[in-house]
Each structure stands twice: as structure tokens, then as C-alpha cells.
């Protein structure tokens, strides 16, 4: 899809007539309970105007509920919602300058594609609804299907109609509830790029809900990782990845090796942690907790395999030796599983750079890592929290 020519065609002017390129969205201590079940628990966050914000979390963690409260389709049990500084908590859905791309698209089956897109414009009595709806269809490259009915479109096309129908109203905040969830992998990757480009071009505030961590990281400026109704951590994708603050984030956003240990000393901003008898060093400013029991974390691609006869670089952390129990080659990289007695199985990604000999199954290796790449988490946490369960197709 090309956007250049048609971008200007996107209408400006929010329902109340004023021009907006998105507005700040603020949730203040929002809680939502369904009977005794707390779906969203004391959640606060701010989405800056014009940003692409991703709400990332596993299925059932309360993402849709949060989005529905912003849209006005669900009322918070407590807390406040502000859009552009205005408290909208007690207003109804149709009064909010917010539009949603629904998880199921929710296109009107009795209306043509163009009438679906023009629906919001007609309600706000905007000028030239059909012309603007047509322009929005240009943006998603579906103008030629304007007179079809939704049931005559493919899933990907329906998804784009839903996007056009929401975007054409130029909302202060555009909410997207797993909009790509029903698409196949290839189309999903393609639409991720398109969606990101459209957002950059039109400058709307996007709040994008997904359970796909790769999707969140590639698209969003800011990612909020959500778990059991709470935000675990919020930040730029790279920051979250490099410095997760909870075991859940460390495991859900990419993979992590988390090793239990005890802080035994702190010298010059580096703490020494006893991990199964070895001293591992972790920068204090990369640790959530700096005394007692901690979890020491390191990303698989930050680990290097040290073969017999080699020595770890001086000043690095290392553990082992342990036996290589699994080697899976994927072209760009190879993933190794190494069973280290007393620590369990660690995961290592290694780039297939020319000239490096291949490590074989069963070989005894040590695992080394720069001190600056390790991070420290609260030792009371469950080290497996948020880890992807390969048996769970919903994960």
C-alpha cells in the first residue's frame, strides 16, 4: 500500500468540529471489577498525544476491558479517565472523541463498505461524508470495494474497512483491540508496517492492544506490559527489553534466563551475588532489589558459549560448565540449551557469524556474559512468571 498521495485526503476535524491531531489520554487509578473478579486493578497510565502506545499482555489480563472503559463501553468501578485534560469518566461512548477498531471488526452487515465508513461522519453531520469516506477507503486501498457488503470481503479487507471506519472520524484517541489477531502471519506482518505508517502520517494517538510481544515492540513508541489487571512496566520497547523490572516482563517480552541468588557484597556500584556457589556481578543501578535474595537475569543473546580450552574474558560473569542438551539451528542464529548443574537449563542465542566452530550436542561449555548486560530482580518473584507456555496456543 502506498500512502503518499492519499494522506492529505484524511479528514481533519474531530466530531465537535475542532481540528485535532490526537490528545493525551490519562487513566487515573482505574479499577474494574466484575462481581468479585477484579479485571483491571488500580491502573494508571498516560498516553502522550500523537504517540503509538501498545498495551501488551497475555489473554485475559484485562486489555479489552481497559480499552472498553476508554471507549465508554464499560464504566470503571473507580478511577478517572481524561482525554485532552477533560474528565470523560461519566460520559457515554457516543459522546467521546474516541473510535475503536474492534477485535471482531463489528462491521455493519446491512450497510455497504462506504456506508460503514461514513457511519460516524453522518452521525456528527460532518460535511461531505461520502467523499471523506471514499478518501479514507483510498488510504486503506479499498476504494474499489466501496459498494460491497462486509460479508463479501476477506478478513484482511474487513480489518482495513474497520480501520478506515474508525480513523475517518479523526478521533482524539484511536483504540485498536488486537486488530491483526485474526490475520495470518504474513498479512499480519505486512499490516503492522502499514498501521505504523498510517499512524505516523495522520498523527493520531493510537492505543494498540495485543498479546504479541513482537507486534508491540515493532510498532509502538511506548509499551505497557500488563499482567492480571495491572501494568507491570511501561517504557520504550528497547528499555523494556534491556532492563526488565519484573520476572513477568523479563519472560513475556522476549526470553530471559533468571537465576536465583543472594547478594553478598556491594562494591563501587556493583553487587556481588552468590549464584549456586559462583560469584555473579550485577550493576546496582540495573537491579530492583540490592540485598538478600535476588533473581539475576540475562537475555539469551547476551550469553556467550565458552568451549573447553577457552577462557571467559576477564571481568565477565560466567557460570558452568554444563552440557549442551539441545541445538536448534535457524539460519541466522542457533539456539542452544545448556544444562548447568545446580542452576537448571539456560538458553543461549548465538549469531551464526562466519569462522566460529559449531558447538555440538553433549559438549561441556561455560556461559559468559558482560556484567553490564545482567539485571537484578526481586528474589521473591516466581522466575517462570510470564514465560511462554509452548503447549498453550492462546499464549
Amino acid at each position, binding site marked *: 500500500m502506498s500512502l503518499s498521495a492519499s494522506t492529505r485526503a484524511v479528514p481533519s476535524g474531530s466530531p465537535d468540529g475542532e481540528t485535532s491531531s490526537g490528545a493525551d489520554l490519562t487513566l487515573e487509578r482505574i479499577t474494574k471489577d466484575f462481581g468479585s473478579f477484579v479485571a483491571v486493578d488500580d491502573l494508571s497510565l498516560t498516553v502522550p498525544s500523537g504517540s503509538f502506545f501498545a498495551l501488551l499482555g497475555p489473554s485475559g489480563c484485562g486489555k479489552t476491558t481497559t480499552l472498553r472503559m476508554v471507549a465508554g*463501553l464499560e464504566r470503571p468501578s473507580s478511577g478517572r479517565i481524561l482525554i485532552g485534560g477533560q474528565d470523560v469518566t461519566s460520559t457515554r461512548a*457516543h459522546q467521546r472523541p*474516541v473510535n475503536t477498531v*474492534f477485535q471482531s471488526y463489528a462491521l*455493519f*452487515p446491512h450497510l455497504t463498505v462506504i456506508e460503514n465508513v461514513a*457511519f460516524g461522519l453522518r*452521525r456528527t453531520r460532518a460535511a461531505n461524508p461520502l467523499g471523506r469516506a471514499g478518501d479514507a477507503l483510498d488510504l486503506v486501498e479499498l476504494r474499489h470495494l466501496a459498494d460491497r457488503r462486509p460479508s463479501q470481503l476477506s478478513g484482511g479487507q474487513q480489518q482495513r474497512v474497520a480501520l478506515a*471506519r474508525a480513523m475517518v*472520524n479523526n478521533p482524539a484517541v484511536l483504540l485498536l483491540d488486537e486488530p491483526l489477531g485474526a490475520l495470518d502471519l504474513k498479512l499480519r506482518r505486512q499490516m503492522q508496517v502499514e498501521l505504523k505508517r498510517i499512524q505516523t502520517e495522520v498523527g493520531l494517538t493510537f492505543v494498540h492492544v495485543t498479546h504479541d510481544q513482537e507486534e508491540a515492540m515493532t510498532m509502538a513508541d511506548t509499551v505497557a506490559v500488563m499482567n492480571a489487571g495491572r501494568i507491570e512496566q511501561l517504557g520504550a520497547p528497547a528499555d523494556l527489553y534491556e532492563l526488565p523490572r519484573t520476572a513477568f516482563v523479563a519472560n513475556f517480552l522476549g526470553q530471559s534466563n533468571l537465576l536465583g541468588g543472594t547478594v553478598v557484597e556491594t562494591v563501587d556500584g556493583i553487587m556481588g551475588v552468590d549464584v549456586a556457589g559462583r560469584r555473579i556481578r550485577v550493576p546496582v543501578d540495573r537491579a530492583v532489589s540490592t540485598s538478600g535474595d535476588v533473581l539475576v537475569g540475562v537475555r539469551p543473546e547476551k550469553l556467550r558459549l565458552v568451549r573447553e580450552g577457552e577462557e571467559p574474558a576477564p571481568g565477565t560473569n560466567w557460570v558452568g560448565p554444563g552440557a549442551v542438551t539441545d541445538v536448534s539451528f535457524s539460519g541466522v542464529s542457533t539456539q542452544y540449551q545448556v544444562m548447568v548443574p545446580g542452576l537448571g537449563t539456560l538458553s543461549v542465542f548465538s549469531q551464526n557469524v562466519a569462522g566460529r566452530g559449531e558447538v555440538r550436542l553433549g559438549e561441556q561449555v561455560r556461559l559468559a556474559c558482560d556484567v553490564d548486560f545482567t539485571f537484578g530482580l526481586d528474589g521473591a518473584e516466581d522466575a517462570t512468571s510470564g514465560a511462554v507456555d509452548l503447549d498453550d496456543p492462546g499464549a
Partner: protein
Amino acid sequence: MTIVSAIGHGPGNGPASPPPAAQGRRGRSGAYLLLLPGMAYLTLFFVFPVVALLLTSLYAPVPGGDIGQYQPAFEWRNYVVALSSYWPQMLRSFLYALTATVAAFLIGYPMAYVIAVRARGRPFLQGMLLVLVIAPFFTSFILRTIAWKQILADESFVVAALRAVQLLPPDGRLTATGFAVVCGLTYNFLPFMTLPIYASLERLDPRLVEAGGDLYAGAPTTFLRVTLPLSMPGVVSGTLLTFIPASGDYVNSVLLGNNTTTMIGQVIDSRFFKVADYPSAAALSVVLMAAILLLVSAYVRRSGTEELL
């Protein structure tokens, strides 16, 4: 589009499924065999009688014969005579049926809406309410209509109350009026209106209603632009199932009306059974059938439910 296809179809939400890959010839003709019992039944009890009806409507009296003795002929003047004598009753039937249909819609739609939409997710409550809608069918048609006769009678509390609040003049009455007949028709056919609308609304995806709200439509607009159009198949079925039998009804006008509220069904009944004037009874029946067919096809065409199918 045919009338039959207007009935009992919901909005097509899912993409139209492609036809299954070509099956063997035997599989296909096997499927058509399933039509046989229905076709046989309809041929025996619908096609033959209709042909007989058409023929009878053109019969002429046997010259010098007794009352009720007719012979095959092509006496098209039967139609002229019947229509010129009974067009007021014919017109009145359609007027009453139309009024009753509109009244049944106004009562039935909100009822169906509450059961299908407001009580959604509470199957027990829905079941109870539906039983209440159908409950009148547990007693006989005649008994129910006679009950109305009691309710609207001069000495009933309804009439007393209406007189008390001066909605009815002191000597005004409800029984033996057109109003009573329309009340009876509305009541007797109400479930036929309510149930198809309920079925349509039950299938309505609540997320579409939410989408309406999300797209700046308040509750009334969402109802008019989303809910009502998507329930049109039910509305069309309901109005047809009410209007068609109500136009031909003769029980309500007999029991609740007087000689100024005579409906065409009553005329046909008396021409046939009382004076043995079979040709004119048949001619009136044919005209009634044709008129209903015309009205109904015009209605279905105008209501534009094709787009929902």
C-alpha cells in the same frame, strides 16, 4: 425475492460460504428427493383445491335446478357481481388487518426487544417470558375471543373504567364495534408478530450496537440505524404472518363485531354455508388471495430486506 425467502432469515454476518465442491449426481438428486413428501402434500391440499376454487368461481347455476346446483361454465360475471356487492367488506378486511398488524407491531416489537436484548444472557427469564407470549395458544382460539367479548362487554370493568375517565362517553360501548374486532385480531395474532421479531433480535450481535455507540450514535440513533434494520427480516415475517391470516379472519368479526363490521371471511363463510352460493364464495376467495398476493409482494419489495439475506 419471494415471500418465502423473506421469512426466517437472519442478517448474513458471516461471509457467504462457497458452494461445496461438485458432488456426485446421485447425491444431488438424492437431496431433491427430500422435497417429495412436501410437494405431494402441497399438491394434494393446496394445488388441487386452488384449481377447484378457480373452476368453481366460474360455475353457473344449473338452469331450472335447485339451490346449490351448479355446472361448469365460464361465468366471469360472478366476479363482477361478487365484487360490486361486497367490496366494502373486502376493503374493511384489509383496513382492519392493517390496523391490527400495526398495533401488533407496536406492542410486539418492544416485547420482543426486551426479551431478546434486555434479558440477553438470562436464559431462564427469556424462557419464561417467551412462554408467556405463547401461553394464549394453550387455549382455543374461540375461547380466547369469547373472553374478549366478556372483557369488552357493556357491564365489564374496562368499559366502566373508560367511562369513568371519560375516554368513553357515558353511553359509549366497546363490544360490537370495529374497535373490538381490531382488538381481537391484534390479540390473536400478536405471537405471530412477536416471535419472528424476537428471533431476529436474538441473533443480533450486541457488538454491532456497541459499534454504533462508538461511532457517535446515541441510543435512539443506534436503534434506528443498526438494531431496527438488522431486525427487518423478523419484522417482515411478523407482519406477513399477522396481516395475511387477519385479512381472511371471520371469527373476530362474528364474535366481537356487529353487522357494520362484517369482514370478507364472514361473507365467504355465509355465501358458502348459508346460501350455498358456491361460485360467489369462490370468486371472493380468489380475489382475496390475489389481493393479498399483490399487497404482500409490493410490501416485501419495498421493505428491501433482500440486502439482509
